[in-house]
C-alpha cells in the first residue's frame, strides 16, 4: 500500500468534487430538497387503509354495539384480538398500522353518562408512526364514527373520546421514517454514479490506461477512491441529518450500527457501480443502466413510502432489493432503536456489501485484452 498516493489521489478527488456543481447538487442539495418537499407533503397527508385491530377489554353491550358500527363501514376491516394479547406486540408482529383498545369500563361509563353529564370515556387509538399516510385516515374514520355514536346516544354531547398512542412507545413522524430512506438513497446514487464514472469515463479518457503504465497499484487506486466516497457518504449523511433536525425536529440515535450501515452501504453500491461499468462500457449507456437500477429501487425499496402501502407483489420485490435492507437497517438503528431488527438488516447489508464489492473489484479490469 502506498499511503502517499492514497492521500494525494484523495485530495485531487476532493478538489474535483468541490468544483463540480452538479455532483455537489446531487450529493447535498438534492436530498435536502427531497426532505423539505416530501416532509411538507406528508406532514398532513391522507391515504386509505383497510385493516384495524380491535381489543375489547369491556364485556358490556355498548362496546359490542360500537364494534358492530365500525365493522359495518365498508372502509374498515375489523380484526378482534384476544384480551390476553399485547396489542402493540401483535400489531408490530403482524404489520398492522392501526389498532383500537376499548377500555374495560366503556359500557359502564356510557350508561352512567345518561344520568351524569360529566362522565366521559376514552378509547385508545394505536398506530405505527412510520405509517403517516394510512394510520391518520383510520384515525379520522374512527373519530367520525365516534362523533356519530356520541350524537346517537347523547344528542351530540361528547361522551366517548379517543387518545392516541404509538405502538413503538414513542411518537414518530413521517420525517423520522423519511430521513433514513433519503440517506440510503443518496449514498446509493452517489456511489453507483461515482463508480460508473471512474470505470467508464476514465477508461474512455485513457486515464486508466495511463495509470496502468505508472507506479500505481489497482489496490491503492481503489482504496483512495473508496476513502473519498466514504467521506462523501458521511458528508451527505451529516447534511441530511442536520437539516432533518433543524427544520423538522428530527430525533435520532447514533450507534455503531449506523456507522457500519453507512460504510457497508457505500461499499455495496460502489461494487454495484463497478459491475455496471464492467459490462456497459459506453459512458452514456452506463449512466442509463445506473438510472435503470437506482430509480426503480428508490421507489420500490421503501424510501419514500412504507412498504405496507404497496401491493403484495411489489412488497415481495422490495425484499430482494439491497436498498430495502439499507433503509430498514438505518430506520431501526437511528430511529426505532430496535436492536433485533437492526442486527437483522445490518447483517443483510454486510453480506450484500461483501458480495457486490468483491465481485466489482474482481470484475474491474485495467488491462485490455
Amino acid at each position, binding site marked *: 500500500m502506498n499511503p*502517499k*498516493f492514497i492521500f*494525494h*489521489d484523495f485530495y*485531487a478527488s476532493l*478538489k*474535483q468534487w468541490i*468544483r*463540480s456543481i452538479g455532483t455537489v447538487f446531487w450529493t447535498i442539495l438534492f436530498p435536502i430538497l427531497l426532505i423539505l418537499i416530501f416532509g411538507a407533503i406528508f406532514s398532513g397527508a391522507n391515504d386509505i387503509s383497510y385493516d384495524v385491530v380491535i381489543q375489547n377489554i369491556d364485556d358490556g353491550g355498548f362496546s359490542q354495539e360500537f364494534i358492530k358500527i365500525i365493522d359495518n363501514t365498508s372502509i374498515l376491516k375489523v380484526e378482534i384480538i384476544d384480551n390476553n394479547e399485547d396489542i402493540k406486540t401483535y400489531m408490530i408482529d403482524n404489520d398492522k398500522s392501526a389498532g383500537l383498545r376499548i377500555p374495560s369500563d366503556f359500557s359502564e361509563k356510557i350508561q352512567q353518562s345518561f344520568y351524569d353529564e360529566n362522565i366521559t370515556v376514552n378509547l385508545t387509538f394505536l398506530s405505527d408512526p412510520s405509517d403517516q399516510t394510512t394510520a391518520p385516515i383510520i384515525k379520522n374514520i374512527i373519530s367520525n364514527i365516534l362523533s356519530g355514536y356520541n350524537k346517537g346516544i347523547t344528542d351530540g354531547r361528547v361522551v366517548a373520546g379517543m387518545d392516541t398512542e404509538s405502538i413503538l412507545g414513542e411518537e414518530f413522524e413521517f420525517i423520522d421514517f423519511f430521513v433514513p430512506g433519503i440517506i440510503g438513497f443518496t449514498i446509493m446514487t452517489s456511489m453507483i454514479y461515482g463508480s460508473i464514472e471512474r470505470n467508464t469515463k476514465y477508461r*474512455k*479518457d*485513457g*486515464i486508466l*490506461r*495511463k495509470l*496502468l*503504465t*505508472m*507506479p*500505481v497499484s489497482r489496490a491503492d487506486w481503489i482504496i483512495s477512491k473508496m476513502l473519498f466516497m466514504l467521506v462523501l457518504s458521511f458528508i451527505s449523511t451529516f447534511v441530511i441529518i442536520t437539516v432533518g433536525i433543524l427544520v423538522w425536529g428530527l430525533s435520532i440515535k447514533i450507534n455503531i450500527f449506523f456507522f457500519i450501515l453507512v460504510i457497508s452501504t457505500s461499499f455495496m453500491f460502489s461494487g454495484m457501480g463497478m459491475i455496471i461499468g464492467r459490462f456497459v462500457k459506453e459512458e452514456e449507456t452506463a449512466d442509463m443502466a445506473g438510472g435503470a437500477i437506482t430509480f426503480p429501487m428508490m421507489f420500490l425499496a421503501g424510501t419514500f413510502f412504507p412498504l405496507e402501502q404497496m401491493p403484495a407483489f411489489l412488497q415481495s420485490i422490495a425484499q430482494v432489493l439491497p436498498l430495502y435492507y439499507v433503509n430498514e437497517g438505518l430506520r431501526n438503528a437511528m430511529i426505532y432503536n430496535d436492536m433485533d431488527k437492526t442486527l437483522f438488516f445490518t447483517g443483510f447489508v454486510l453480506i450484500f456489501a461483501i458480495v457486490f464489492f468483491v465481485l466489482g473489484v474482481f470484475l474491474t479490469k485495467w*488491462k*485490455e*485484452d
Partner: protein
Amino acid sequence: MIAKKVRCSKCGKIITITGSSGEVKKVNCPDCGNKGKVTFKKYLTNEDIAIHVSNLTKLYGNLKAVNDISFTVQKGEVFAFLGPNGAGKTTTVEMIESIRKPSSGKIKILGKDISTSFKEIREKIGILPQEFHSFERLKVRETLEYYSKVFENHADIDEIIDSINLGDEQNKLYRNLSGGLKQRVGVAISLVNDPDIIFLDEPTTGLDPKARREVWDVIANLRDRGKTIFLTTHYMEEAEYLADHIAIIHKGKIIAEGSLDELIDRYGEGSILRIKNCKTKGIIDALKDYGYYVFSENNGDIAVKIDYKEKVMNILSLLKQECVDYESIDIRRSNLEEIFLRLTGAKLSDGGS
C-alpha cells in the same frame, strides 16, 4: 568495412564507396567532378537501442491484429509508427507499454524485457495514450503535480511548463483548454518523471492545422533535448516532418521501414517533373527518343521521371529547343502517401482499405 553504391546526383553515374559503420565520407564523381557526402548506416550496439521488438504478434480469436513484427528504435530518435486507422498501431504500442499482453514475441525497453522488468522500466518512460483526456476539474499545474507525485523520480514542474509553453494556462482548469492545449498538457504529463523514452499515440488526431503544428514543435523540441520518441500516427506529414525513422504498418504487418530518404529511394518513384497543359503534339515521343521515362496523365499533363539533377536542365533545354507550348512546370518528390499507395494499393488517409 561496408561497400555502398551511390548515384551521382548531377550526372547519374553509379559509384561504389567503402566505409565503416556510422562513418560520413566525402565523394567526388569521377565523371563530372560533382562533390558530395555519403553516410554509412550505423550498426547498433545494445547501448544505442531504446526499444527492440521481435516477432511480436497479437491475436484476437482468428484475427491477427499484429502479425509477427520486428523493429528497433534507436536512442534519441523520433520513431514514427505510421499506418491507417485499424492497421495495428495502437495495439502494438499498448503491448510495448504493457497495457496489452502479446500473444507471442519479445519486447525489450532499454535492454530489459518488459514481461519481467516493467516496474523498473515504467519509471523511465512517459506515455500519452490515444484520445487522452485528463481530469476535467484539475488545473494544469495541479494535473502535472498529480501525475508527478506518483513517480519516484520527477522532473521540475516549472521546467516542464516552460518547455511546453504552458505558462499562461497553468492555472486554468483542464476542461477549459482548447484541443491543442489539452494535447500539449498530455505531452507535458508524459514528461513528469523525466523519462528517457516518450510514447505519443496519435498526439495530433482531431486538431486543427495550427494546433497540430504547435504540438509538432513541442515534439521536435523534445527530440532536440535528446529524448527518444515513439510516435504513432496516421498523418504522413507528421511522420515526414518529425521522424528520423519510419515504420509503415498495414494490416498488422510492417511493410516498409527506414528513414524518409531511404523509403523514398527504395519505394518511391524519385522526383517527377510535370509539364502542365502541354499543347505541342509529339513531345512525348521526342522525350522518349532522348531516353526519358515519360508517361502522360489523364488531365493532359506530361510527367517525366527525374533520377538525377542534370536531367532537369536537359529536359528544359529540349522543351526550349522544340518550342513546346505549356502552361507551367513543377518538380515534386515522392512522399509517404505515394509510397503507401504503391505498396498497398490503398490511400493512407482512407484507412488503408
